[in-house]
């Protein structure tokens, strides 16, 4: 019992801590890729910038606009953190370092929690009671509700091949070969959908700053804004860890007889995907909103259905022969 509690606290602490560190990692990596320095002054490589940012955000005036719906306005930033951290519970880090990786509806739980995370953005935008915020919230809702569909469908191929919703079983099913080979289509669609779900650049249309100031969080300040900000990084970690668990074999890899090697593999794979998310932000411009929605429904939906059909047919053929 004590061990379980320590596991939960440890994993949640590590995820939130990594999310805070990512603020600095992202700024340095963006600087590197855009041929400038980024924050490099405080402490070693500028790592003290995280602490400075934290002090700043904690001591800022936490202002609730008088025209806002107070209860909902305060509730909204908590929803994103709560739902995404709950989803982390079913992600197996290693065979022994996990909270509920064995749950037989694990993957569905992740989808359920990410679909609840939409409320954070839409309620935040609505409660702010200002034009920019509500336009951002409407965009966010339409975008996430649409891309949720492709996200779910793109994972069906993985579930068919593994024969289970449990993330542990999915990892163990990849012992003979990672799913990235047969599920390359599903991987690409899930990647785009995950990017849209986290609404990060290049798909940050709900908060496009040149059109909408800051979109749904225009009216937020202080730690409430910080919750949205850190929540975004937590969802990046969740997406990256899901990519590595579902398509790249999670903790699997040569262990060289060292007990901690699975953890190293998991962290390595997840880290590569986090950096890839940051690289995408540095490299790709933002699409126009209607083009992006059209792309989703006219390209990604047929492709993900095709992926389901092909995978199903292939698995049936294998079983028949």
């Amino acid at each position: 019992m004590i061990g379980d509690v320590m596991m939960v606290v440890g994993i949640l602490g590590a995820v939130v801590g990594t999310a805070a560190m990512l603020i600095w990692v992202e700024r340095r990596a963006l600087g590197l890729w855009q041929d400038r320095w980024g924050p490099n002054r405080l402490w070693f490589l500028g790592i003290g910038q995280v602490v400075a940012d934290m002090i700043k955000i904690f001591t800022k005036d936490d202002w609730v606009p008088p025209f806002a719906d107070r209860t909902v306005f305060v509730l909204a930033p908590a929803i994103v953190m709560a739902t995404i951290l709950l989803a982390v519970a079913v992600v197996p880090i290693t065979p022994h370092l996990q909270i509920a990786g064995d749950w037989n509806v694990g993957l569905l739980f992740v989808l359920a929690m990410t679909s609840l995370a939409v409320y954070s953005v839409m309620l935040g935008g609505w409660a702010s009671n200002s034009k920019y915020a509500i336009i951002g919230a409407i965009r966010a809702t339409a975008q996430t509700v649409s891309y949720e569909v492709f996200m779910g469908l793109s994972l069906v191929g993985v579930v068919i091949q593994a024969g289970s919703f449990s993330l542990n079983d999915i990892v163990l099913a990849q012992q003979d070969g990672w799913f990235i080979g047969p599920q390359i289509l599903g991987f690409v669609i899930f990647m785009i959908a995950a990017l849209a779900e986290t609404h990060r650049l290049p798909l940050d249309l709900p908060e496009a700053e040149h059109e909408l100031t800051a979109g749904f969080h225009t009216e937020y300040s202080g730690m409430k804004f910080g919750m949205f900000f850190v929540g975004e990084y937590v969802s990046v970690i969740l997406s990256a860890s899901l990519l590595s668990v579902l398509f790249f074999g999670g903790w699997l890899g040569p262990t060289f007889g060292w007990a901690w090697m699975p953890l190293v593999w998991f962290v390595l794979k997840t880290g590569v995907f986090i950096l890839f998310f940051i690289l995408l932000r540095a490299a790709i411009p933002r699409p126009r909103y209607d083009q992006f929605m059209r792309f989703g429904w006219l390209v990604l939906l047929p492709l993900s259905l095709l992926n389901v059909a092909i995978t199903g047919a292939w698995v049936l053929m294998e079983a028949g022969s």
Partner: protein
Amino acid sequence: MTTFFYLSSAVAVAATLLAITRSHPVHALLYLIVSLLGVAAMMLTLGAPFAAMLEVIVYAGAVMVLFVFVVMLLNLGPGTRPDARAWLQARYWFGPAVLSGVLLGLLIGMMEPLQSTIVAVREVSPKAVGVALFGPYLLAVELGSMLLLAGLVAAYHLGRSDAPRRGRA
């Protein structure tokens, strides 16, 4: 497990009552979402994790999102409160409440012979649900998909615009 069951059903009932009586449309919808989550938790305690997850994904995560979305688009704010209050007068809700009360009494009366508390919960795995759906209940699944197709066609027809399209992508 029994404690969890009664706790989550208490939450669901309380949230539903609040959803009916709130005069602010968005607050009422939020209580309805909580009520759906309570029902999902109840299903979990009854050994139906698959149904619980679908309840969250489909109802709390998609249907209710669209409800809130529409309220947001229509911008139904505190201004609609007087209208909603007018609908909460006793002469409007008294009749339906009596009729529902009779139905509730009947339901409880029918459950009387069962008498059993929830014992020996057998967990139904997602695979078992799938096997049942595509085995004995295949016809129901096909009928359901036909119904959805009809809805899709109707939505396409309603959403189609005959005006010349501006700004083609």
